[in-house]
């Protein structure tokens, strides 16, 4: 997870460079760049979402059941416990990544007057 996070952030230019541009919402190039970074974060997280629910808990459930954690067959554990924990973690990673991205592009709402 750690290394993936870094990959996501690496290419975002420094916050300051964009501060002025952000003031001008019509700067579509800037907005497009933000959107494509957003899509990238989404795709990575949704890939994990899919593999941890449909992958481990359904498609590969039977082969994973040969392994045990405590009294749980592994595939069964993923289906009734593990996948849910991962879903929660995924959303919080998303929240963090997006808050960082918003800041880097000057789209964070803390600067709004509300």
């Amino acid at each position, binding site marked *: 997870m750690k290394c993936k996070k870094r990959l996501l952030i690496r290419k975002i230019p420094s916050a300051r460079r964009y501060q002025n541009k952000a003031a001008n919402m019509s700067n579509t190039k800037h907005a497009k760049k933000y959107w494509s970074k*957003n899509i990238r974060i*989404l795709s990575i997280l949704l890939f994990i979402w899919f593999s941890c*629910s*449909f992958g481990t808990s*359904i498609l590969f459930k039977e082969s994973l059941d040969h392994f045990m954690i405590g009294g*749980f067959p592994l595939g069964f554990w993923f289906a009734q416990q593990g996948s849910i924990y991962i*879903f929660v973690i995924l*959303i919080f990673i998303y*929240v963090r990544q997006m808050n960082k991205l918003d800041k880097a592009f000057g789209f964070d709402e803390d600067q709004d007057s509300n």
Partner: protein
Amino acid sequence: MSTQEWTYLIIGITFALYIGIAIWSKAGSTKDFYVAGGSVSPLANGMATAADWMSAASFISMAGLISFMGYDGSVFLMGWTGGYVLLALLLAPYLRKFGQFTVPDFIGTRYYSNTARIVAVLCALLVSFTYVAGQMRGVGIVFSRFLEVDINTGVIIGMLIVLFYAVLGGMKGITYTQVAQYCVLIFAFMVPAIFISIQMTGKVIPQIGMGSVLNDGSGMYLLEKLDKLSVELGFAEYTAGSKSMIDIFAITMALMVGTAGLPHVIVRFFTVKRVRDARKSAGLALLFIAILYTTAPAVAVFARTNLINTIHESTYSEVPDWFSNWEKTGLLSFEDKNKDGLIQYHASPEINELKVDRDIMVLANPEIANLPNWVIALVAAGGLAAALSTAAGLLLVISASISHDLAKKVFRPDLTDKQELRLARGAAVFAVIIAGYFGINPPGFVAAVVALAFGLAAASFFPAIVLGIFYKKMNKQGAISGMVVGICLMLFYMLKFKFGLFDGGVSAVNNLKEEWWFGISPEGFGTVAMLVNFIIALTVNSFYPAPPDSVQEIVENIRIPSGAKPPQNSH
């Protein structure tokens, strides 16, 4: 104190609390009424969303369902939580930025068409009404068993309570009562689960107890023991399940996508202040939901093992009190087929003598495990909190659909805010009465339709909203035909394979299993209907011109989080 005195006391206190909150949070404008003023904190919204989402079905029926389905029950666990990932990543932040009051608002504006808006309103009403009838029924069951009043009286008491705080407070009243209801229901769910986990495995945390060694001296893992018991009684192994892989896959997907497309869940994200709050409250909501959803499979395992251990091969004349109590409700029944005076429980209907309604597993669980009276009373209050909170959320969607989407936006744009608010309250009263009617006279198919409501939401809303956000060039012709074909296909499949409408009624349904398309059950067909919706929408889209520039600008604007305005009742 007896169980019944405890029940009156605890339910009385919780009801007084809900009413107190309603009076404190009276709605003064349509903005208060529809979206709680748009200033709910992410934490409160997370809790309210969790209570809104966890219905009587989650609280009362789900653990019981899983305990009879074993691994197959995972479809509910994953389906009803995984949808929040889709909701948080694909819908909630953008819809919050868009910032109006309802889902049909978004569809109508994004697809620049009142036809689209009306199609969306009809889908929202169809989904919400089927869902809310089931909630009122849940209220009735709890009242009849624990307070020993007639089911109908129970439904009417429930109606009056919901009526009071939904009509007075609108979304504002509902939000803060839901926060209280979440606390009641999660406490009521966890306490017995923890007690039973300690009894059976010595572990305090049920999620761990479920995978631990039994403390009956056998040295066996709980799940290992349950697998063995299940096979002995002729059932499939608990951890293996018996549905086909493609069906499990399709049902899970349909429930996830349906969850993300349910209007009463989506509107909750209109109530927070900023886009980042919408993201955060989706995470918090799932966290709060996950507490119950990871405990439920543990409760399922405990309850099933306990039931088999205490009842199978025991003498009927010496059964514990709870058995006779539940027999009175008709949800539990015994027929001594081989006349030996013992209760035999078996998978094969010829020798099985015990009928257990899956709905009673959670409610009867504390009694089966011999827990103190106040715990049993607490579970009753929790069941009511779950049913009332969801019912209130749904009623609001219904009332907003009528007063806002139809009256204000289509027929009478000249309505003032005051008039619209009065109309919204009237529509809420009307919706409560209809819901109560269905609670008292449940059409036989309510339970079946509640599960299918997800298929309908998946087949209609989800593709239209996602395309509206992620595909700027999506036009109204594409979106409308996608929604119409999707929901009609889903309805057709439901009527054919769930109600046997074209083959001679419900009795023919079992023989139609062979004809299921791709081996997918009606519950999982929402996945197929959703894909068809996407394909039709994109195909039709390519034959018509792109949407006007003003609409494309809206799309560009909702993709950027900053500058979110509080919801306004105008364009």
